[in-house]
């Protein structure tokens, strides 16, 4: 028994080590910040706190003249804990490594939280193999790489909540109630609220469906109202001091949409715009092996229907319901799709490892067959899941798709040499997401057009400074393309009498006027 415990702990640290290695690949070689459109906004909330050495309640100057100000009346969009945590890591480990280490550690939470739940439900080896597989969950990796979204961490808390739910409800049904798990469940919902409230929906829906399933199976209400009320009280007390952050609620009116009924026959319901088509491809996201063995796993669970099977099936049903919320007019299913792997991977692993138990053979042979299947599965995971995700992580935002050191230098000059109320107009930077990075790294209001501009418009002259950044184009093409040459000519004409205050590595900053 003792050696088992040591083995469990050893596996936890091994999984943590592998997760850290893989998920930090995007900033191991190049430690400059990366990510698509929303990563810069999450980064800058934390960065503003660490640069000022002060927590912020309202969005900082770099958000002036952006739509972000409208979403929560100028306040931070979420409760401040997640971004404050990243700011603290910046103070400990540096502006970029600190923030991204925090994002990576929080985003890989699903690997270990799933281990706890699946070990409780189906044993150590099912837990170890499914957690190993989850390290390479493509949708989780995409949300993390593209935008360091807090919801990745919040979805990672779901298995811990379900562990507590399972422990509490099953102990209650055995007349040995363990209310500590109900209270821990309340604490975990609060944590989800602090990180990103979206994932609370899947936690709550799964626990409701599971409770109903237990009620039907055991013909007994599986919880005590007093314990549930105390858990709700814990959530209320912990959340109350931060409620003033939420000034608006983006609620979509619920109404039955009959035109969406056919979408019930599609696994992903009605696709929502915002991600490429491949995001909706099951085999594209999970590889070719998950679907067949997940189906085996689901069938075996439906046939078995023990409490632990019912929990996994409840989780899957909750996912299905959320994917079809368009039926009542809601369209937030896109982000929930990363939950699919969290449910189906453990179901698939459990299904495969249960197969030998269905055939009559001596126990020693059963053990060897199970071992063989486990080894085969690990090899398949390495080939079909680890290899492609390694490429995504290792090659994330290479070359000029990421902010360059020349661009970082000019933003640092702006941050250190200009006043907070100064405003900037940015020309030349090659892509929209990098323009956003230029804005947030300088911590100043920086305006630009989303598309590339090839002439100097009058709006640029209404700012304190104008930045002309040709560095990406020259690094990529070895010179300026014709349209950029016309921008440069316009720059020389319009800013002929303006003072150049910064000129390095093909980036110039003018004081306007």
């Amino acid at each position, binding site marked *: 028994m003792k050696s088992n415990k040591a083995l469990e702990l050893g596996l*936890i640290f091994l999984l943590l080590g592998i997760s850290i290695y893989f998920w930090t690949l995007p900033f191991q070689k190049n430690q400059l910040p990366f990510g698509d459109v929303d990563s810069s906004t999450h980064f800058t909330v934390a960065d503003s706190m660490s640069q000022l050495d002060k927590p912020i309640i309202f969005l900082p100057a770099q958000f002036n003249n952006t739509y972000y100000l409208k979403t929560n009346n100028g306040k931070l969009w979420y409760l401040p804990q997640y971004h404050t945590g990243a700011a603290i890591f910046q103070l400990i480990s540096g502006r970029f490594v600190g923030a991204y280490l925090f994002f990576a550690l929080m985003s890989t939470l699903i690997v270990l939280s799933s281990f706890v739940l699946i070990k409780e439900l189906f044993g150590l080896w099912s837990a170890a193999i499914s957690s190993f597989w989850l390290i390479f969950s493509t949708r989780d990796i995409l949300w993390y790489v593209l935008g360091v979204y807090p919801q990745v*961490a919040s979805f990672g808390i779901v298995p811990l909540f379900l562990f507590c739910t399972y422990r509490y409800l099953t102990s209650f049904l055995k007349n040995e109630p363990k209310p500590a798990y109900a209270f821990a469940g309340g604490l975990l919902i609060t944590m989800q609220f602090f990180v990103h409230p979206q994932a609370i929906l899947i936690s709550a829906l799964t626990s409701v469906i599971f409770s109903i399933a237990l009620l039907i199976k055991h013909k007994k209400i599986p919880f005590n109202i007093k314990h549930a009320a105390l858990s709700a009280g814990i959530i209320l007390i912990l959340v109350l001091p931060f409620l003033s952050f939420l000034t608006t609620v983006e609620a979509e009116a619920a109404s039955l949409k009959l035109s969406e009924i056919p979408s019930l026959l599609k696994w992903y319901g009605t696709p929502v715009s915002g991600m490429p088509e491949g995001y909706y491809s099951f085999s594209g996201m999970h590889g070719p092996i998950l679907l067949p063995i997940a189906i085996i796993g689901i069938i075996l669970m439906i046939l078995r229907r023990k409490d632990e099977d019912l929990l996994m099936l409840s989780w899957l049903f909750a996912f299905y319901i959320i994917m079809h919320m368009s039926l009542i007019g809601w369209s937030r299913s896109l982000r929930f799709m990363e939950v699919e792997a969290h449910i189906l991977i453990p179901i698939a692993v459990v299904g495969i490892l249960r197969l030998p138990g269905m055939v009559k053979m001596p126990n020693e042979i059963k053990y060897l067959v199970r071992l063989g299947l486990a080894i085969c599965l690990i090899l398949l995971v390495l080939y079909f899941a680890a290899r492609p995700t390694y490429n995504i992580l290792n090659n994330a935002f290479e070359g000029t798709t990421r902010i360059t050191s020349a661009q970082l230098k000019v933003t640092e000059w702006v941050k250190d040499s200009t006043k907070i109320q100064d405003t900037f107009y940015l020309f030349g930077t090659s892509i929209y997401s990098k323009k956003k990075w230029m804005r947030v790294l300088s911590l100043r209001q920086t305006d630009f057009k989303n598309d590339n501009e090839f002439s100097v418009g009058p709006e640029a002259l209404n700012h304190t400074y104008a930045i002309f950044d040709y560095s990406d184009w020259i690094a990529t093409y070895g010179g300026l393309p014709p349209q950029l040459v016309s921008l440069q000519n316009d720059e020389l004409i319009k800013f002929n009498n303006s003072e150049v205050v910064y000129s390095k590595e093909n980036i110039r900053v003018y004081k306007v006027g």
Partner: protein
Amino acid sequence: MDNDKIVIVIGGTSVIALLGVLFGLSGILAGIVLCISTACAKIIFVKFGFEEDFSIINGFPIAILFISSLSFGLGLLFGLRNAFYISLVILITITAIVKFIPATKLKKHSKKLEA
């Protein structure tokens, strides 16, 4: 020291070492904060009767959210860096207090709740 504790110490040290190899001093410092905060949360949860693996895995997010909640409030008065140090000291102090509360007292309290 029993086997479990040896594995925890080796595991924690390995995580710090890995972060050190990947990110130098920045990684080591982050690793130390990761291990200290997780260890504190783990000690508290285990004392309240939760399993060791649940307590460890729950430990980091819960400890960091505790620290960041406190740091956010205290940071408005003392600056974020100082607030972080104060919060860490508070977490360590709470852990020390919980560690030395006799387990029987906690069990009595939990029996009351069960009733």
